């Protein structure tokens, strides 16, 4: 039986369950390239016959939309925000992550509890309190921490979109200017992530490298993690195509 532990009090009785899947986390700051890597990993894992589920912050059926709406008004307080995120996380843990692990899936999650902790702590929340609140979280099989510095991060972010209110810490830093606020906030966040690396066993991946290099670095570790897992019978593309009726009328 594949048993697991939680970081703190096991509120959901997860340590009694048989959870043969693998829980793999990608962490790192906003715009570091997590979602690209998750998409690549999913392609690769599924092509190799692994069943994959994926999840990420604010994707819960319960609280995702509510959290988006609450953030729009810019009136969300620090503690409220953390507990809202905890609700979102708990819903996904109970309804997505744990069922998928029971069924033997590889679960890829875009961020986990570490981003929430880092964001809370830089805003002055008691670091012990936020860890206790999220204590019901399962300890993952691997946490990949995509590292980057500000000179690499800024062009990457700005080529896709503009600075975001929350990602720039405008809710608590006293800047009127988005750029200055962003620099200060992300510097604080990166320092906080670094300080958490040892405690939570982060595997550091240098995300300033080109996308395929980053992917290969993560893939190498995951290959070892999943090598004994059940795989679906691999269907040869040619054989599959022959079995399926041809689509007409194109």
């Amino acid at each position, binding site marked *: 039986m594949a048993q697991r532990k939680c970081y703190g009090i096991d509120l959901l009785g997860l340590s009694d369950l048989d959870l043969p899947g693998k829980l793999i986390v990608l962490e790192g700051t906003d715009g570091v390239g997590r979602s690209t890597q998750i998409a690549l990993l999913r392609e690769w894992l599924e092509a190799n016959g692994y069943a994959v589920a994926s999840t990420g912050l604010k994707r819960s059926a319960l609280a995702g939309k*509510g959290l988006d709406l609450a953030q729009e008004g810019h009136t969300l307080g620090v503690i*409220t925000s953390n507990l809202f995120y*905890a609700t979102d996380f708990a819903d996904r843990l109970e309804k997505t992550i744990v069922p998928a692990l029971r069924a033997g899936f590889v679960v890829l999650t875009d961020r986990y509890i570490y981003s929430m902790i880092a964001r809370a702590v830089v805003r002055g929340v008691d670091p012990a309190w936020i860890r*206790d609140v999220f204590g019901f979280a399962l300890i993952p099989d691997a946490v990949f921490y995509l590292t980057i510095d500000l000179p690499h991060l800024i062009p990457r972010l700005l080529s896709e979109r503009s600075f975001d209110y929350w990602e720039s810490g405008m809710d608590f830093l006293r800047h009127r200017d988005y750029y200055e606020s962003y620099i200060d906030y992300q510097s604080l966040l990166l320092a906080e992530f670094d300080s958490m690396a040892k405690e939570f066993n982060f595997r550091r991946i240098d995300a300033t490298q080109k996308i395929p290099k980053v992917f290969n670095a993560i893939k190498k570790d995951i290959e070892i993690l999943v090598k004994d897992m059940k795989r679906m019978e691999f269907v040869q593309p040619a054989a599959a195509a022959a079995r399926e009726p041809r689509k007409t009328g194109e």
Partner: protein
Amino acid sequence: MATLPNGQKLPGKLFVVEGIDGSGKSTQLDLLRKWLIGEGYCVAFSEWNSSPIVGETTRLGKKKKMLTPLTFSLIHAADFADRMERQMLPALKAGTVVLADRYIYTAFARDAARGLDRQWLKRLYSFAVRPTVAFYFDVPLDESLKRILAGRPALKYYEAGMDMHFSEDPYQSFEVFQGLILNEYKRIVEEEKLTVIDATLPLVEQQDLVREIASRHLKGVLRTEPSAWRSALTGEALYGRYIDEVLHKKES
């Protein structure tokens, strides 16, 4: 005194009422509120589960029966946190009386009745201000059930504890659930030293006790210049939360 978790004293006073459904706590709080306003105190009021920015999510979760004991607990904690951060704490810092209909003890009792770990719950709510007085309206289970169920009201799914599958019958489920909550309250009253009011006493006697206890803590509380409307109505003992809603709309 209302005090922050770090021990810092706040100038305002926080009075909270607790008790199972049918204990009469909301009625007593409303009477206290009328009296305080009549005496010229500046009074803010906060009700359990009423945050405008969290409410939508709670409603969705209840309507679609999506809430587990853990998410039920967390979303109510978020609701409480929002009211604490934006409503109760600023008012307490300003020096007003804050009245809360249900407080963290409601969460301790309900969530523990749903099987969550008591220590974790205490930790979860450790950011809450310690109230000046927390009144607990003590009523036997039979009496509260009689008061609530007399009219055979339609019980809501989570209110009746239907999510715990004690019984398929909402009334039976409600009885079992209320019994468990009452047991938790008994423990909490001891541990947290709540001020117990015998909720089987006549309404007026209970209110006399509540006012007597509250009045010991009102020195230095912010007072308000009552509006003409308000003073006229208060003079006739016609001031409370319903008329307050109407007046608020008129004024804004």
